[in-house]
């Protein structure tokens, strides 16, 4: 017996499967990215937990740490120094014109020094390290993952989180303030050179005028906030690398996402940290 015989067609449940399928696919389109995001954060949390658990256990991987300090620090130095130098020169050239218009040309050294130490030095250093070190770590660990080298480390009874992730994260944390100092130094030097080319000023006078209104806390907090940037770069790059899958294409994805995500989180952290610094070091 046909139970739908007297039901008008537009109320018939025959149409339901199609509409419910469309509903399901619409729900999936909304839910899947959210689910993916939650899954990513969940895996990141577990990764951080594994690294933290390994932190205080022997061996402390001193040899690998030194290698990574060299890899992150000294090998990034030329690029960071050049970026800092370029920013210093550009700042001096750009600010000079504006300050002349307002009759505040004498504030130029202070403007250059202040902006380099407070913002441009740390952020430019972080972004350069994101690009160079983040991509390097993402690709290296990604490649090790897809060729089962990380499995081989684990199979030989060695904690891969400690050997590979912990050492790279600590190297990023320790090297970031030093690299920032290098970028700051180069930026101030080129700022002075750019200024001197337009209107000669003695270096000691430039430095004296630049640091006149700057206290130690002005210098300390922004420099040490780069340790947080280092933490972010190290964690994100190692995490993206160690979860890599899908052959060489997967390695490429890991390297790219390591750079993109670490840059994104560095900029986000910068906003939060600047606010915190202004609260605690007004």
């Amino acid at each position: 017996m046909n139970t739908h015989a007297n039901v008008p067609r537009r109320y018939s449940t025959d149409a339901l499967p199609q509409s419910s399928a469309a509903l399901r696919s619409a729900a999936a389109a909304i839910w899947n990215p959210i689910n993916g995001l939650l899954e990513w954060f969940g895996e990141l949390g577990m990764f951080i937990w594994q690294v933290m658990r390994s932190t205080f256990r022997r061996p402390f991987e001193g040899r690998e740490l030194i290698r990574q300090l060299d890899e992150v620090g000294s090998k990034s130095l030329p690029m960071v120094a050049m970026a800092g130098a370029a920013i210093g020169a550009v700042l001096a050239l750009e600010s000079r014109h504006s300050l002349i218009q307002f009759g505040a040309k004498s504030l130029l050294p202070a403007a250059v020094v202040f902006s380099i130490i407070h913002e441009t030095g740390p952020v430019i250093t972080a972004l350069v390290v994101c690009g160079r070190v983040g991509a390097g770590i993402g690709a290296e660990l990604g490649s090790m993952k897809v060729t089962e080298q990380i499995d081989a480390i684990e199979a030989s009874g060695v904690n891969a989180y400690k050997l590979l992730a912990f050492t790279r994260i600590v190297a990023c944390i320790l090297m970031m303030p030093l690299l920032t100092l290098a970028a700051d130094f180069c930026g101030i030097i080129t700022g002075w050179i750019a200024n001197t080319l337009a209107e000669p000023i003695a270096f000691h006078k430039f430095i004296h005028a630049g640091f006149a209104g700057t206290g130690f806390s002005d210098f300390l907090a922004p420099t040490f906030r780069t340790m947080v940037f280092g933490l972010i770069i190290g964690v994100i790059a190692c995490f993206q690398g160690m979860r890599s899958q899908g052959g060489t294409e997967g390695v490429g994805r890991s390297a790219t996402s390591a750079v993109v995500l670490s840059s994104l989180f560095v900029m986000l952290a910068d906003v939060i940290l600047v606010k915190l610094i202004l609260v605690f070091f007004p």
Partner: protein
Amino acid sequence: MMPPSQAPAVKPPETKRGEKFGTPISVKQIGAKPANAGQTNTGPAMVVQGLHKSYGEQKVLNGLNLKVGSGQTVAVLGRSGTGKSVLLRLVIGLQKPDAGTIHIQGQEITNASLEELNEIRKKMGFLFQHAALYDSLTVAENVAFPLRRHTEMTAAQRSERVKELLASVGMEADLQKMPSDISGGMQKRVGLARALALEPSILLLDEPTAGLDPITSGEIDELILKLQEEREVASIVVTHDLHSAKVIADRILLLHEGNAVIEGTYEELEKSQDEFVTEFFKRDS
């Protein structure tokens, strides 16, 4: 079809030995304590019970049981994608099973902490299907890696041990080469030397003779037999090489659809009337 539980008592098969290969691997290690030293182990080296593993909808292992005693070698055969490599990864704890237990020398590992697992792994040697050599280290450094991590050998002792291990797989001339500079077969032999570095009491070998020429395959088989006899090493060998399985294995386990179709000696499997088994052995004959 013969279910695994009804498989006859294991008896090591008569094997033809090839020529003596390489230098013998000494049990008396120079300055280092073998990972399994001081242990009296009377029970089976590995016991796998009711092992289940799925990836999404795909069931890879479906209640697999396996027992390997000290000094025994079990060859695991089966079509590609039947979970042979997954079994090895589960046994060494690289992946967790969905259900079932794995006992290594009496210790349950499926719920072990990472630290406990790492202690157990020091007693095990694992040869990966594609060798998985560390590509930033030389051949010698690859083999020295576990020694540097887990022994207190001096650099000179380590170097001597590395030479000894590489000589045992016929790779003593390539100490300073990078993995990318040697062939796949050579990489596999270096991977085997690395797996043997800590004198493991358990060996898990994923296709040890795949991609090797017949002579080298024979030499690897000989090495496995030597380890079995001299050091009572328990091994699971995943292979597609029926000849190798015949030579090295005390028992052969044939996997199909996540479970053991049959378990027994090569001769028993060869005589089996089971359609899948005969199909499998037909090609070799």
